[in-house]
């Protein structure tokens, strides 16, 4: 799980262009969206949906479905480990 969390952090930094951050800067339990987190927005959420499909073969039908998964890096890692197809 630790490896997957690190991998996700690196991918998130890359696809969301978080150029000023390193994986160590992201608390795996911290919220990704809204104040107090990374301040991601709706386009970032859509880009995370693409990331899940491209890297792990997981297809989400709607942006709303992503909302419950993209709460923290740890939560995404858990979802990916249970649902990944590649």
């Amino acid at each position, binding site marked *: 799980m630790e490896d997957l969390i690190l991998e996700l952090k690196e991918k998130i930094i890359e*696809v*969301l*262009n*978080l*150029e*000023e951050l390193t994986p160590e800067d992201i608390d795996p339990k911290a919220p990704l969206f809204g104040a107090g987190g990374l*301040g991601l*927005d*709706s*386009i*970032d959420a*859509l*880009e995370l*949906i*693409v990331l899940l*499909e*491209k890297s792990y073969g997981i297809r989400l039908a*709607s*942006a709303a479905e992503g909302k419950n998964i993209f709460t923290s890096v740890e939560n995404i890692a858990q979802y990916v480990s249970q649902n990944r197809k590649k």
Partner: protein
Amino acid sequence: MAAIIADNIISPLGFSTQANYQAVKAGKTALQHYDDALGIPFPFTASLFSEEQKKEFTIDGLTLFESLAVTSIRKALESCQIHLDKRTCLIISSTKQNISLLTTDSNPSENITCPGISAEKIAKAVGITTTPIIVCNACISGVSALILGNRLIDMQEYDHAIVCGIDLQSPFIISGFYSLKALSENPCRPFDIERIGLNLGEAAATVILGKENLTGGWNIAGAAIRNDAYHISSPAPKADGCLMALEAVMKGQDANQLSVINAHGTATLYNDQMEARGISKAGLSDIPVNALKGYYGHTMGAAGILETIITLHASEDGIIIGTKGYDEIGVSGNLNIVRNNTTTEKKDFLKLISGFGGCNAAVYVEKEQGARSKEQEKGIRAIFENEAATLNVHHHIVITPQSVQIDDEMIDTGMQKGKALLTYLYKTYTQDYPKFYKMDVLARLGFVATELLIQKERGTRSKEQEEGKRAVIFFGQSSSINADKEFLRSIADLENYFPSPAAFVYTLPNIVNGEVAIRNNYHGETAFYILPRKDDSIMRMITQATMLDNFHTSIITGWLDCKSKDEFYAELSIMNYELE
């Protein structure tokens, strides 16, 4: 107040305005379900020309985009007697022009990727000698172009403006909206409780505007563009810009004269809810509202013009066209959404539209009851002959890939060049806006240039002056070519087809206007115009046209062009409107 003297629509429903109007009136739709059309690896519903129809309007030596524009303009010209000369301008409204011909290694100077060159070919084929202007203002482009034409005639710069809205579909746009989860696989349902997204469509629609004063004619009597200053792709939940545009065009008008508000009504959850909120906040809940996307889908650059033409002809016919796809209300605000065709005695109508980059536009279209009175004529001229107020340049900036100059001062570049120079400027002068890193190069260029201008201004003006109602108007040659290629890379390989939503949003050049509006909380007009080449006299003319909307007290404007991460040029000014 220009008059609409001729029009044409070419869509999959027909090749003339009448054919289109009659089809829509009879409830026909051009929307069809496709399993794998255009080489797109997912099913979708859209309004597309058939191969036979494409053959019918193809002209030798022109691209499909150019051919369609030329055909529509020629047909509109057939129905009126105007002389094409130095007093005629061509305004093309289009979001993606020849995009289907772009490849990931296209040369940025090629004609195919230079929309202005394409526009010159259209002008030449039609016989127009003045420099064409392309309005590339996302989904509001069509209405934005009508507003520009109206103003240029009011200013007496031209006697006639030929305004042609046009977009064709390709994997580019359809995959982009798919990546934004904004498409409905089935026919769209504007304002309905079960709406889940939009359909795309292709069409061309042309309106010819003139200074003619015709009894019983149609005039653009009010026009406004306002920005939400909220988000580059989501409409403001409180409908800020939409409400401001509605209030501006209704000023001095009697809502009882309105037959209908023809809404954007894309059938996405957020757009329709936002419009409903704007309409009810503006106190217009009693006015019938309709939307035409159930017949044509979203025709992008054509939408604002096509929908204005259909609504005008319906109003002339005493009809409000029903909102195809609408059954049960799914927006708040107690709106009067028209389900089926109904009759109306009233003539005037509003066209409302919103788009990416946070822009919103509204026009009030009125039927002239008599001829315009002498006083009205005089009133119009008085505004434009009043030269007591002038636009003065307060600060000026030029950014090239290796230099930065503000007013007369060269700024330290930290020995950086190209995209790295823009990052250096951000890190040196802004620092606290990480959204910068998500922007494409064009948006980064516009962002740092305006940041530097505004910081320079802060020393010299009060906060009220600075936060005055400001317009943001940019001009360029290369549109969003760099972002276009970036997005194209995400759909180049069918085996690895993952269209990127973050790349797609920047494939509209006016997103940079939206970024500047959001950063600075500017609610004034935002627009991006593409020209064949930098032309200071046209830019000055359009800047002055923008200031005819007396909401504005200042403007950030100028040339903003980015061919690649190492090849760009910005020359922007802050100008203030001042009484002498």
